[in-house]
């Protein structure tokens, strides 16, 4: 069952309150469209969501082929930050954009909590 739209804001709040998180989004895994977002200025939400969804799909297929099953959490690390993603059972990606010094374990927990809220 999909959560009401009001729950989306609450789910994103869980993530953006973590220190060094620059923004969070809910993205449709199927078509890469932004469902809800709380992003700092300058982050191109629609473009990032499209690429995140595409990357998620490729990764998912590769992981299933490798026999490690469905993706529960992934973390794209870069020199100046990171993209952290949790896919939900309902076909949504919960996405966080973060600074390099972010507490990855904490963001992961909040993404998983948000994924439960979103469903």
């Amino acid at each position, binding site marked *: 069952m999909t959560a009401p739209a009001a729950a989306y804001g609450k789910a994103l709040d869980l993530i953006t309150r973590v220190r060094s998180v620059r923004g969070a989004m809910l993205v449709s895994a199927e078509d890469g469209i932004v469902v809800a977002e709380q992003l700092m200025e300058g982050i191109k939400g629609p473009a990032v969501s499209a690429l995140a969804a595409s990357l998620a799909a*490729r990764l998912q297929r*590769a992981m299933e082929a490798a*026999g490690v099953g469905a993706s529960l*959490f*992934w*973390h*794209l*690390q*870069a020199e100046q930050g990171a993209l952290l993603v949790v896919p939900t059972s309902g076909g949504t990606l919960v996405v966080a*954009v973060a600074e390099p010094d972010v507490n990855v374990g904490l963001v992961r927990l909040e993404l998983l909590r948000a994924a439960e809220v979103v469903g």
Partner: protein
Amino acid sequence: MPDEIKTLSSQLAQDPDSLVFLRLGELLRHKGQLDTAHRVALTGLERHPHLPDAHDLYARILADKHDYERAFDEWDMALRIAPDHVGALKGLAFLYFKIGDVQQAAAHLEAAQRVAPDDPGVAQALAMARGEGGGPADAEAVAGGGATEALTAPEPIAPAAQPLEEARVFAGLEGAQEGLLLLDASGRVLGGALKDSGGRDVTDAVAAYLAGVSQEAARTVKLLGLGKWTGLAAEGNHGHVHLAAPTSDALLLVVRDRAVPMGRLAVIAQRAALAARRWLEAHA
């Protein structure tokens, strides 16, 4: 020597943080008491995890016990802490000789020679590796002479010990033929292999799905203004994966079951990326 072992054991018992474990471990190793030496080295390493000599000692004991994979890890760790550690450079050269990778062995010996130009063992092994007397097997024995005396009997490098080029990319790394994969930008396999939990080879299927992932990851982080991507770690229901780009045109995949923590996986991936980069440079 038994008296010295007794004295050092007593000193270590009185002061467990003392560095005498290095000398004690070495003496025990020389005496062939490998299990005791192993315990001494491991306890010392737990107390001094950032001491390169402790990793070097432990690696030599592991090599004497023919546990080459873990010996490789320990020498590799010693070099991460102290990039000029001659013992670790000689030890890795020895392991590369063992798998028939004379080029890598010579590179490590050259690095050792830059640090210790007067070390006759290094010079002799290097000369043999370059074909200036003796063969690689002799060089292996000489290189091992400084690091793993118990292995001085040269083992001939039989054809079976000379793996295929692609298998050698990850030589000495754990899971080289079941959980490590190196691809080019088009998803073609350059080295390594993957097997699923049932032992089925899934290399080609996974490679096909990963084609283009590197470029997509690069585009995503560029769009976010995050610089270059350095890794992609993912948790799955039954296992973990880690992706890295050893060069801009290659993609490395490491797969392990869920028992291996993500942090450990990142360390394995770093080592594999280093090996892949060297291999790609050598075969450019």
